[in-house]
């Protein structure tokens, strides 16, 4: 403190940078004071275990006896493991199907439901329902709907003239699409909520101004809604991508990864190898690969967002 005061008094030329430094230190203090309450909990209960888990990928550990350092052995084994490659392929395919479909549907629903209509609350609740319904119920109902012979989906397809309707969850080709359809249906209400909150942040004046200029609905969407939703879209995209790559619950209750390995995903492999088969080091290595992959995609999205903002 005294040095700064001395600097300030020492002359006009040095005054500006000194004040900058004081201000920066003040800003740092203020910034940290905001972040600290959350950061303490976050660092202790999430960051530390996450770092520990990723460190385990270079070790051999059975989740009981002391871990042993094995260097890159787990990763070499990974590269030769057909289960890992099958799970990786399924995970990527799932994400490629799930992300764009959910994004488009949830945004569309949010736009439709973001208006003053009688009974709109009811519709919003309804769309959110799949997300809060019990997973067990969802798995049972969709498995019945997708039943190859007596299920309503195939009955409808046959009526529409499809002669050889897919076997859905009992077919290695169609199990993944069945899972994707179910998960899009389940998740769209969740992301709709996020978009609804985002839409509230766009000032109504912008729409009014656009109307005065005679812009069409389509124009307003592209020139007002889309730019206004950019931070929300970034958020939704990141959360959606990450959760697609980490998908576990729904697939676990619907197909348990089957038939065979047709819907086996990375998270399930991690669960299987680590917690059930007692090869925790190896499963941590799979987690690290998944982590790096998702991180790269997220960073790419982050860059893209920042560039657009500039």
């Amino acid at each position, binding site marked *: 403190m005294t040095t700064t005061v001395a600097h300030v008094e020492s002359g006009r030329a040095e005054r500006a940078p000194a004040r900058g430094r004081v201000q920066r230190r003040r800003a740092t203090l203020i910034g940290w004071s905001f972040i600290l309450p959350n950061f303490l909990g976050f660092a202790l209960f999430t960051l530390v275990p996450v770092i520990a888990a990723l460190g385990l990928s270079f070790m051999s550990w*059975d*989740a*009981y*006896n002391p871990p042993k350092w094995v260097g890159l052995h787990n990763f070499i*084994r990974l590269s*030769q*493991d*057909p*289960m890992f490659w099958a799970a990786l392929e399924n995970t990527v395919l799932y994400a490629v199907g799930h992300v764009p479909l959910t994004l488009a549907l949830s945004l569309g629903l949010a736009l439709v439901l973001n208006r003053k209509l009688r009974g709109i609350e009811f519709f919003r609740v309804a769309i959110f329902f799949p997300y809060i319904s019990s997973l067990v119920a969802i798995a*049972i109902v969709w*498995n*019945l709907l*997708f*039943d*190859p*012979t*007596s*299920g309503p989906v195939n009955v409808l397809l046959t009526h529409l003239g499809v002669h050889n309707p897919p*076997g*859905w*969850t*009992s*077919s*290695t080709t169609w199990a993944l699409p069945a899972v994707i359809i179910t998960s899009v249906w389940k998740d769209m209400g969740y992301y709709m909520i996020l978009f609804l909150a985002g839409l509230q942040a766009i000032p109504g004046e912008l729409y009014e101004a656009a109307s005065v200029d005679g812009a069409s609905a389509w124009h307003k969407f592209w020139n007002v809604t889309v730019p206004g939703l950019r931070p929300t879209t970034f958020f939704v995209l990141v959360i959606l991508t990450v959760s697609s790559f980490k998908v576990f619950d729904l697939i676990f209750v619907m197909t348990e*990864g*089957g*038939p*065979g*390995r*047709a819907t*086996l995903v990375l998270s399930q492999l991690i*669960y*299987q*190898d680590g*917690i*059930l*088969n*007692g*090869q925790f080091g*190896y499963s941590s290595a799979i987690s690290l690969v998944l982590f790096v992959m998702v991180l790269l995609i997220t960073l790419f999205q982050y860059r893209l967002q920042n560039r657009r903002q500039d």
Partner: protein
Amino acid sequence: MKRPMRMLALAGITASALALAGCAGSPSTSSNNGSGKTTLTITTWDYADTPEFKALFTAFEKANPDITIQPVDVPTAADYEAKITTMLAGGDSTDIITVKNLTDYSGYVAKQQLVNLDDVEKAAPSDKLAGLDSYQYKGDYFALPYRTDFTVLFYNKDLFQKAGLAAPDNLTWDQFAQDAAKLTSGSGANKVYGAYVHTWNSLVQGISAVQNGKDLTDPSDYSYLTDQYNMMLKLQKAGDIPNYGEATAQKLAYQTEFETGKAAMVPMGTWLIAPLLADKAKGVSVPNWGIAQLPQITAGQPIVTDGGPTGFGINKNAKDVAAAKKFIAFAASEQGAEAVASIGIVPSYQSDTITQKYFGLAGMPQDDLSKKAFAPDSVKPDIPVNPNAAAVNTVLSQEHQLIMTGSKSVSAGIKEMESLVKSQALSQ
């Protein structure tokens, strides 16, 4: 503008008050409660719906008034192993770990998580304990069984009579298939299947392995599975057993299939007996049923079936090993067997008195065939104790699904099992 702040503050006060209340409500898990009484902690699954635990614990407490048992309950049987793994990783000090199956046992033994029980085994009536051998690992025992289940053929007597068939006494698999075809009738909602073979891989692979005298953890040659798979696929194609894909999609429950008379024969573990008795007692309509020996490859030979024990082991971090050993010895004794048998569970300890008591339960079939089926000549585990048992079973189960859904031919599936088990599960 001040409203959100006030709401936040209000919610905060409520939340912290609630959190404190919840903390006060949580009971302590200490081992000794000071009154000179010892408390023994035992892991269980679904305590409310698994009556054998309560029966056994009550009987033990009666015989040992100075010890109280406190169950550490895992809500679901399906996720039991995940919870135990996590608890033990954290250094949990629950005294006794219930060993749900041999695959889990393999894991505990490989990680050296259980106390050696050779002394308890020596003092126990070992020759009368079915399934005890399965726990032997390199000459040592780390758990002792209290119940031993094995696969038998459950059959619906009325449906057999209606089809004019003799009771399925010592069938071969070929005869089983012929009977299944004759017992199948109707269509749509009235369809009755000759048999229901549940979706588990053990019902094809496990049975086939023990009846051929093979070991499923040995991947050198799985071709002995071919006949059993061909038979199942043929039955499925003819519509004599429910389609595998539909059984999975509709999450068919074997108990429901049998109880509602949808299937005339169900090869299943003896654990199905207890719920059938319980349902009958509750007033749910249960068909006139009996059990027969599991079908064999050839007739007139000793009856070989698959099965295994459920038992108790002692946690290395246990607080009271002496009391824990007392309990394990009790569970393996005749007294323990009586408690378990009284609710329709098949105890490991076998004697004529126990069998008599068992068949004296209300609702048990009384015919000779059922009694004969209750004493198979040889019960072997479908996957023997092996550090890689869980990983091997994962591969086998995946290929089983692929073969049964027709995604892969039998020979291609068997080849894949051989190469995957060899390269994956056995090379860590």
